[in-house]
């Protein structure tokens, strides 16, 4: 006879689940409200979602660091908390962008499901970063991804359907690779718990080709899945098309949130290899990231559409960050989070600026919504908007004192420090490549500034800010201030992040 399984509630440590439960509960609440009352204004849902996200942030803050829960599936450590905070804050800034000036222009926001799906996605991402169990990571990843595909499709243009299908198909393939990678890991170590995997790999020893080939194969397969989500070459193909197809805020959101979640997974997974001094994996990541940042920068140079340019630029930023990930030092890992924390403001701001100028009719170009020509002579027609956009561009290109500069500074200095600590001059080469790439990137960011400030308007068509509303202006204003004033908070922020990251041993 089977023993009845009795589990004490206390040992579950359900508090570790609370942030996700809040998001899921909120999503269900939205669905229920919709069930009972139709045609509520989207403002209500926006506010409700924001409220839920607020509570979620509070719950995340109240988590104790370095605790496990729910049969040790959940792992709340420093990087989990900091990445959840980035995810939630970005979400909080993203959601009010739904409050465009005209209520019915973008009907995806008039569906309550949109908000429910959004919260499910957030919950999925939170699961992804709060566990070191490969299966739960996968579940979280798929929950988030499937919601995301739908959210993209709900933009409901020809482009967005195409984008969703492409993303979905390639995502399915990437998911396959993730599973294959997990299988290889399980086959070699007999566990899907990463901390177990680390122990077993250590005891097995990783010297010699025969003992390393299976773990290395697992790492390669994992890197495919991770590379897809983080958009590393050559798995980045979806990025420009999907960004182009989806709404601008969604594109900005995608360039931050799913990536940071996957980077946490990468940190956990590749951290094992780096701790075991399997240099092959570090080299692999560095080579891929160098190729990624270089090629995407080159491609960004020749783009005709600002949104596609920003898509390639976000790929190159991801390559930048991945290069630091291969180092595995506390400073490098902290810098990654700092980088995304600062990049978030600027990048979301840049995409939001595109968003408020979005017009249903493609008035400037047959295919693109935001060709460079659209912004010609913007300084005379919309001086403030032009200056704001210019600030975002300067920040993205890493010009002090704007936010991304500090991210780059810490990131590159972590590489240089690593080089000094290990005495390996090749990491200096990596730092130089990163700096050179930044220089190349400045070209295409400044190109937009040149269009805005130095070129005359192309024709009588004026750039219109049809979507501008007080809510959007507020969000953008906040983003601008966060970008400009970063010099004042970057130090404490870095200390906070370093504290969280180092407290769980990364």
């Amino acid at each position, binding site marked *: 006879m089977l023993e009845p399984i009795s589990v004490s509630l206390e040992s579950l440590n359900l508090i570790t689940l609370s942030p996700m439960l809040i998001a899921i509960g909120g999503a269900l609440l939205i669905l229920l409200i919709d069930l009972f009352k139709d045609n509520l204004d989207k403002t209500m849902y926006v506010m409700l979602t924001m409220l839920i996200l607020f509570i979620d942030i509070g719950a995340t803050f109240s988590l104790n660091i370095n605790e496990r829960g729910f049969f040790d599936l959940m792992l709340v450590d420093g990087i989990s908390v900091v990445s959840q905070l980035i995810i939630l804050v970005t979400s909080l800034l993203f959601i009010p962008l739904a409050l465009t000036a005209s209520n019915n222009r973008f009907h995806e926001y008039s569906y309550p499901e949109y908000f429910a799906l959004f919260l499910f996605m957030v919950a999925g991402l939170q699961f992804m970063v709060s566990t070191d169990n490969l299966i739960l990571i996968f579940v979280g990843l798929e929950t988030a991804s499937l919601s995301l595909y739908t959210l993209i499709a709900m933009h409901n243009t020809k482009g967005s359907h195409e984008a969703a299908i492409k993303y979905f198909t390639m995502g399915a393939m990437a998911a396959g690779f993730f599973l294959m990678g997990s299988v290889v890991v399980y086959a070699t170590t007999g566990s899907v718990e990463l901390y177990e995997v680390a122990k077993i790999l250590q005891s097995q020893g990783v010297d010699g080709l025969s003992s390393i080939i299976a773990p290395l194969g697992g790492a*390669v397969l994992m890197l495919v899945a991770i590379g897809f989500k983080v958009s590393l070459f*050559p*798995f980045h*193909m979806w990025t*420009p098309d999907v960004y182009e197809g989806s709404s601008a805020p969604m594109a900005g959101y995608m360039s931050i949130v799913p990536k940071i979640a996957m980077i946490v997974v990468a940190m956990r997974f590749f951290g094992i290899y780096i701790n075991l001094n399997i240099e092959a*994996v570090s080299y692999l990541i560095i080579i891929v990231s160098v190729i990624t940042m270089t090629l995407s920068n*080159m491609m960004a140079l020749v783009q005709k559409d600002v949104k596609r340019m920003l898509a390639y630029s976000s790929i190159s930023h991801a390559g930048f960050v991945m290069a630091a990930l291969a180092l595995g030092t506390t400073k490098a890992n902290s810098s990654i989070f700092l980088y995304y924390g600062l990049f978030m403001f600027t990048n979301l701001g840049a995409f939001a600026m595109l968003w408020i100028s979005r017009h249903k009719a493609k008035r400037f170009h047959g295919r693109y919504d935001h060709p460079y020509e659209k912004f010609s002579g913007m300084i005379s027609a919309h001086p403030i908007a032009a200056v704001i956009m210019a600030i975002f561009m300067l920040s993205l290109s890493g010009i002090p004192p704007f936010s991304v500069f500090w991210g780059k500074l810490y990131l590159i200095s972590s590489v240089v420090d690593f080089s000094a600590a290990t005495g390996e001059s090749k990491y200096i080469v990596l730092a130089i490549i990163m700096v050179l790439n930044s220089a*190349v990137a400045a070209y295409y960011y400044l190109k937009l500034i040149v269009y805005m400030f130095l070129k005359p308007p192309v024709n009588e068509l004026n750039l219109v800010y049809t979507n501008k509303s007080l809510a959007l202006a507020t969000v953008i204003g906040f983003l601008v201030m966060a970008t400009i004033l970063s010099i004042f908070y970057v130090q404490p922020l870095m200390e906070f992040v370093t504290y969280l990251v180092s407290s769980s041993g990364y």
Partner: protein
Amino acid sequence: MENLLYIALFSPLVGSLFAALFAMSPKNIITGIVTSALLLISFIASAILFEHVMTVGAVHVTMMDWIMAGDMLIPFGFLVDQISVTMMVVVTLVSTVVHIYSIGYMDHDKSFNRFFSYLSAFVFSMMVLVMSDNFLGLFIGWEGVGVCSWLLIGFWYHKEDVSRDVNPSISPSWAANEAFIMNRIADLGMLIGIFILYWNTGSLQYDVVFAALPNLSDGILVAAAIALFVGAMGKSAQFPLHTWLTDAMEGPTPVSALIHAATMVTAGVFLIIRANPLYAMEAVEWVSYFIASLGTFVAIFAASMALVCRDLKRIIAFSTLSQLGYMFAAAGLGAYWIALFHLAAHAFFKALLFLGAGNVMHAMNDELDIFKMGGLKKVMRWTYLYMGLASLALSGIGIAGVGLAGYFSKDAIIETAFNEQNYILWIILIVTAGMTAFYSFRQVFLTFHGSKRYADTEIHPHDMYKYVLIAMSPLAILAVIAGFFKGWFEEFVTVLLPAYKMSEETHHIAWILGLVVIAFAVGGIVLAYIKYNKGLKRNEELENSLVYRLLSNQYYIPQLYDKIFSKPYAAFSRFSWLTLDQKIVDATVDGIGNMIKTGGDNTRKIQTGNLSDYLRWMARGVVLLVIVAFISHQLSQGAN
């Protein structure tokens, strides 16, 4: 006292920022009033500090740590001692008068508010310059006054360039650039001097540096002294860096009075006085002697050009140059306190002279040619009085211990030259004193006496506003009485500066020396009276003579600089631009850019938009990664 110090220092800054708020808006009298009031406050604070320094002693504060890098520690500190407090009082007093004067003078200017913002910013920089307790702070102020001077000379930047024959200073913006660039050249010397001192003493604080001087080798001391003096030469417009000062007269007249007569141009003299422990070293004796000689040369050189000049403001500018030469002569001979005394006295009467010239300009619709004036004394009684007084003071009129400011200060310098038994310098300085009297009164007589040569024009001259004339009175009073404080001043500053006493013999024959000087001065005035009192009689033959043309064209030095420096430099720049930059540097940069761009174009082709292609690329990517992983593994094994 610390608070007073900050009040004295920062009031002008507050005024400047306040006026800057209105910079783009139309004229608002409030900017003039507020900046003037704040300067008055600054002056009062300086005066109280003066009293404090006199009775109690120097005030030294450290506001904050400024630069901390490695072993280098430079606090942002201020020092109010006998030297700096003298400068502070002079600067703030003249500035206050000039500010009030400007309210009237700039009355019709559309950039009224901007003007006051610049003017107050200048005063702030000047205060930083004189109050800093280290060389770096001094340098900041030094550059600050340079920038403000540039802004103010070029205040009417919209005026077009004209040829040198029409206007020797071409245009305000040209003159501003000339002043700035020439000062930059000299500043390099100053910077090198500061570097040398820092390198060898490890500090920039005056007290630390001066205390360390005896330990330095002679070569270093000489190098530092020369380098610092080069800086002083630029700011105080000593030959051969003197051309900018006369061209700087393109600025509004109050600017000329404040910056290019009373305060900024004396910064070089101030630097030498400040660094007197360095210049008094035995090792740098010949540098000091060189300074004295150069000063004397500039004194007569500038005076000679003033003899024939027809431009009202330029005459005064030449006389400023000449008087700066006197100051350097005194400082070079070791009579630092006399140099400082002449600096202060000169500031009063020279500012008065310039402001008077401003009144004349205002009355004559900006006409500056004294050949076209005359007979103004009836309509401009007060200005006549002021300018007459100032010219008397400048000429050093006085006898038997009673006289105007210049009598005391300039005579003392001439006496010093005699006392040093340097009779060549002494004779030159005496001759210069005669020339000074001549050109000063040539100007006064041509402007105010004789017939009204402007009668056939539409000009109806009138005197300045009452309040402006009243505001000028403190300067007039000081021009008259400043000299009586000589003994008292000597006692005050020689606490800090080396006391310079005349030898017994000199003292004995001092009255004879005084008489000689007076004779020359009066002789100059009488000559001017004979020649010009009745009106202008032009002598074609004289005006076409070689000497006359040489003098009136400033010895052709500006033209020479143009040929030797400006033109070849422009040619070199053009060469660098067209050949070095465009054909080599730009082409390389463009080449790299194009290469990357071509790379982008090629890479872009894999982005087909076709989903099957993308999936294929993912599969290829996996293969690629496997290969890379294998290579990486081999690499890492190889490395171990």
